[in-house]
């Protein structure tokens, strides 16, 4: 037998392994190297008011969430109702980082699905995303009054993560 002919089989076996693992998965959060470090500074154009900017400096002194989203992102639809509900409770400002998106598509998406964001800013070329180490959408960062990243959710926010981790942490950070 020629060894080279086994390559397709080997690729498939690896693929099947991943598919099998995929069947038993749930979204879960992992530590990020950015946690405990200052949030990368940015100043970006606002989605709904292109003549105005918003930057990390404007959020100094507040505990805030930064949610990375895009109209083309399927998983964003999953977490969106949670964000909308959270916004109604008025606990924490949520800044939306509209990642690699067309402004028109983004605005339309918010009209259709509800707009939970205090402000949305446009990261059209994904530069700020790179600074934040975003490697997919959605991702959510919790940033404290001093501008330090305290928590990072990779993938959609789950009810569980919100109630058990994010909200208690916000509560604690707002008191300090």
């Amino acid at each position, binding site marked *: *037998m*020629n060894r080279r*002919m*086994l390559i*397709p*089989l080997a690729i*498939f*076996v690896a*693929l*099947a392994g*991943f*598919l*099998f*693992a*995929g*069947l*038993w*998965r749930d*979204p*879960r*959060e*992992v530590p990020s190297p950015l946690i405990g470090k200052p949030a990368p500074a940015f100043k970006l154009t606002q989605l709904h008011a292109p003549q105005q900017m918003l930057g990390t400096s404007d959020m100094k002194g507040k505990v805030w969430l930064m949610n990375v989203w*895009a109209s*083309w*992102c*399927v*998983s*964003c639809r*999953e977490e969106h109702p949670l964000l909308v509900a959270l916004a109604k409770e008025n606990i924490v400002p949520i800044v939306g980082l509209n990642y*690699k998106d067309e402004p*028109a*598509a983004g*605005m*339309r998406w918010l*009209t*259709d699905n509800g707009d939970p964001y205090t402000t949305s800013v446009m990261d059209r070329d*994904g530069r700020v995303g790179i600074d934040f180490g975003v*490697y*997919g*959408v*959605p*991702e959510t960062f919790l940033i404290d009054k001093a501008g330090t990243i305290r928590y990072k*959710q*990779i*993938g*959609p926010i789950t009810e569980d993560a919100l109630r058990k981790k994010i909200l208690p942490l916000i509560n604690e950070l707002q008191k300090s």
Partner: protein
Amino acid sequence: MIPELGHLALILAFLLAIVQGTLPIAGAARRIPSWMALARPVAQGQFLFIAIAWGCLAYSFLSSDFSVLNVATNSNSQLPIQYRFAATWGSHEGSMMLWVLMLSSWTLAVSIKSRHLPDEMAARVIGVMGLVSVGFLLFMLTTSNPFERLFPVPADGRDLNPLLQDPGMVIHPPMLYMGYVGFSVAFAFAIGALLGGRLDATWARWSRPWTTLAWSFLTIGIMLGSWWAYYTLGWGGWWFWDPVENASFMPWLVGTALLHSLAVTEKRGTFRNWTVLLAICAFSLSLIGTFLVRSGVLTSVHAFATDPRRGVFILAFLVIVIGGSLTLYAIRAPKVGVGARFDLVSREMALLANNVLLIAAAGSVLLGTLYPLFIDALNLGKLSVGPPYFDSVFVPLMTPLFFLMGVGPLARWKQASIPDLAQRLRWAAVVSVVTAVLLPFATGEWKLGVAFGLLLAFWIVAATFTGVRERLRSAGGGLPAQLRRQPRSYWGMVLAHLGIAVCVVGITMVKGYETERDVKMNVGDTVNVARYVFRFDGVVPQRGPNYQATRGTIVVSRNGTYVETLYPEKRLYNAGGNPMTNAAIDSGPFGDIYVSMGEPVDGGGWIIRVYSKPFITWVWFGFIMMAIGGFLALSDRRYRIQTQRDAVLPRGAAAKGAQ
């Protein structure tokens, strides 16, 4: 009673599939003619029972028998009859039923059209298709029985998902599945050839028409899906890189590679191992696509109700079928030997490059589709990679592919020369560059991306015409005689390649020049888009057979002259669910005007979306041309006379004759 009959027919079909998948293959290995002879009648019997089962399911839907769980969850007494029929494949169970129906139809076709095949080959091919059928029927009978009863019987059904209540639903899934499942024939031929250890040019010649047919259906299926999404989702997109779309696009890319590779194997006897591997891959991707859609491992707008038990079953099935065939490939393929030699510059090389690029494209679609799954499996979270990834990967892969599409058909087999090719194609190059640079000026706004896209499209057209002219000249005689002397398969290729060019023009123009406005409009307001003026004349309620609609009236004019009135709708189905958007589209050869209704706003106004989509219909028209090219190639004379020729010539001679 009828559903039970259907269930029984399904069980009988399963038993026949077991016979079909075992005895003929064993018979071919041990040379027992009576076992091999079972293949055709058993396959035909299996088709009969599956057709009965499917008929029973369709009857249950048409007669609104809500005691059947599947009908109760996917139909409704108010549902119009054509959608009740289409609802037959609207659910997970029903679409599996359609899958096995298609598989057994293809097997039936093979059993009828395989008279000229050697007995062992026919037995192996039909046997392999029987084994695939065993897996799917077992899957249906154990986890997805479409005939499950419901007690107590509900008064009415839950209704078909409103998104699916569209003429597209009647025709898109059958076409798509026809193509998807059709690759099982090429797969079965490949496995049959590997089992028999005879992987010569005859193998390629037998499987080529089947592959072309399946590919043509898949092309139509994908085109219909894209068109349907465009007019029904209400945001004017036509391709979303959704996992389910990707699931049909990957087999298409690999199937396209297979078509070209089969041509080389048939004509030159080379690429044999590669072609077999492609045949296995094309069908494997169809199966993986089925797995992705059914198991719920990925988030998708198409997702059916999911159940991990089903996922495990399909995955086990995938491992057996794909793992088994690749193992067989690893054991048997090297024995087959290399074919004729060819130079670095030759048509073989151009086609090999075509194959590599298409496989790379399919691989990157697979990677993009599964990336969220990989990241998740490595405990890194759940993510989406969206159109930005696919767009940035596809352009660099398609550019050389389209360039080669111009060169390949003109290059000589075995050995070609670059100076010669450059000399023959110089006019094509000049013409395409000049038109691509100048034409975008005509639109008023010159864009580099548009010029580049048009360059690729015009290059394909100009190079194809150069090839046609050369061929006609060398044929001699007057023009009518010249035209007649070219085989239809040649015209099929020409048409399909021009189809790509048409499609590229469409994509380029719509990407470059589409304009869209989302505006809040009160009655009497106007908005300007692409030289048209749109006036909103308010909304009126409308009543459909099973929905309530709000219909907007938009009057379109240009330079003060009335053009037309468009009526977009917002529908709320009686059986519940989200409101549906029905866009109003004025379609034309040079572009569409697309109007859809968003949400009502305070004070009686509405959010109205107005889009201008230049040349969008060219995208689908290009796909239709490709499919017609495929059918044209199938109508070629040599496929009609093949039966007689095979009967006359011994096996080796037939292979030589094909060259």
